[in-house]
């Protein structure tokens, strides 16, 4: 059966959909969607096929957008997306993730909301913000944001979330209680104790395909793997040109394979090292890394890729994609071996998600 490959791109000025076929050589670019709102994340509810976009308008506040026709028409809602009249205001959504018949939204300031009616109404998962560490939560450069939601693949009561600059939390009881999961992760910016219980700046985290207890994360201070559901982490930075980067994505079927994009550090512009663009891949759980740069600019490339702006598709020959702060989108139809620019003039790209659809 023929397939359509869609890239769902969230930008500073709207969502865009790029489309191609299974070969992924020629792409079209949509007009701006979601009324040009800043969109931090777009994902797919695999249960319903709906596209979900999370963001916030500077004029009209936060909302989760929803399309049931692959992006042609959209609705939106923020009913219940509030900490109450006495609580802090929520300017935007940073992550929207569907799991087990529910939809979850991570927001700024950091907190988690859940919808049981396909995004029409939302309720606060209050136990996370009731965690005793919360008075000490500190923001990262992007704000105090819950940017990562990673449901457990087989246990619907378990989920990990990532908050900058607080770290990873896990629930094993459907959100009623939460536990910090940062053991072994450095916080170099905390000179009194670089291994605190919380206060780490997780940039992106995911659970590996087929191994629900295997987690990977790109942190402000290194790249890490956990083999026990986050109870402890092992650093896998050696072999990379930098410990700093934002996105991290895993192979859709191989838990050993991961792609990241190192940046030159947190205080030198956060560009790709040596102004030469590259994606780095491990095929052995972080024991070794390979630099992938064929087709990417190798000179004067002052490129930044943000935490949600990399994705993989589910084709047999896995496609890898990333979008840049400069509005470019790059695609590799062969696991990162070769790259092609497929959009060059979008607004600043904040998120990329791949969606393969039977045409």
């Amino acid at each position: 059966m023929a397939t359509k490959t869609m890239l769902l791109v969230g930008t500073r000025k709207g969502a865009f959909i790029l489309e191609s076929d299974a070969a992924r050589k020629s792409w079209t670019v949509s007009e701006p969607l979601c009324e040009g709102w800043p969109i931090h994340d777009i994902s797919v509810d695999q249960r319903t096929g709906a596209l979900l976009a999370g963001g916030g308008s500077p004029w009209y506040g936060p909302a989760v957008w929803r399309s049931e026709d692959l992006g042609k028409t959209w609705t939106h809602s923020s009913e219940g997306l509030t900490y109450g009249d006495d609580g802090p205001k929520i300017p935007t959504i940073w992550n929207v993730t569907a799991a087990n018949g529910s939809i979850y939204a991570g927001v700024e300031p950091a907190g988690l909301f859940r919808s049981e009616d396909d995004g029409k109404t939302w309720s606060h998962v209050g136990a996370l913000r009731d965690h005793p560490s919360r008075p000490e939560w500190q923001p990262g450069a992007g704000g105090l944001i819950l940017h990562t939601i990673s449901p457990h693949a087989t246990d619907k009561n378990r989920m990990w979330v990532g908050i900058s600059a607080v770290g990873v939390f896990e629930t094993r009881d459907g959100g009623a209680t939460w536990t910090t999961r940062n053991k072994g992760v450095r916080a170099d910016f905390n000179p009194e104790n670089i291994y605190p219980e919380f206060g780490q700046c997780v940039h992106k985290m995911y659970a590996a395909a087929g191994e629900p207890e295997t987690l990977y994360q790109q942190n402000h201070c290194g790249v890490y793997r956990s083999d026990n559901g986050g109870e402890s982490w092992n650093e896998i930075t050696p072999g990379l040109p930098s410990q700093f980067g934002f996105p991290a994505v895993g192979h859709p079927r191989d838990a050993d394979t991961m792609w990241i994009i190192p940046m030159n550090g947190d205080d030198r512009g956060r560009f790709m090292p040596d102004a030469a663009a590259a994606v780095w891949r491990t095929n052995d759980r972080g024991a070794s890394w390979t630099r992938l740069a064929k087709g990417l600019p190798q000179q004067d490339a002052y490129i930044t890729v943000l935490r949600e702006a990399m994705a993989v598709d589910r084709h047999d020959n896995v496609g890898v994609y990333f979008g840049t702060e400069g509005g470019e989108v790059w695609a590799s139809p062969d696991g990162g071996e070769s790259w092609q620019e497929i959009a060059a003039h979008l607004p600043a790209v904040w998120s990329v998600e791949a969606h393969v659809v039977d045409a």
Partner: protein
Amino acid sequence: MATVVLPRSLVALFPGAERRYEIDGATVADVIDGLERHVPGMRNRLIDAGPVLREHLNVFVAGQRGELGTAVPAGATIHFIPAVSGGSMRRGTFG
């Protein structure tokens, strides 16, 4: 009865919504409640926690800048205007 004039960027969020409504209400907050009855979901786009009017929205009642509690005289025209300050979209550059 007041005449409410809505901005294009707001109406565009609600297919079928109109730019002008005739709505009864003693205050701006009452008028927004009336708008919500015409266009479900619109209240959330106008009002933030507090409740207060969203930070980068302005409301003018009979030509004077107002807020949620501002009284609405009979026959007044109410304009909701996106503030110029909301156009920067600077948030999130580093994340």
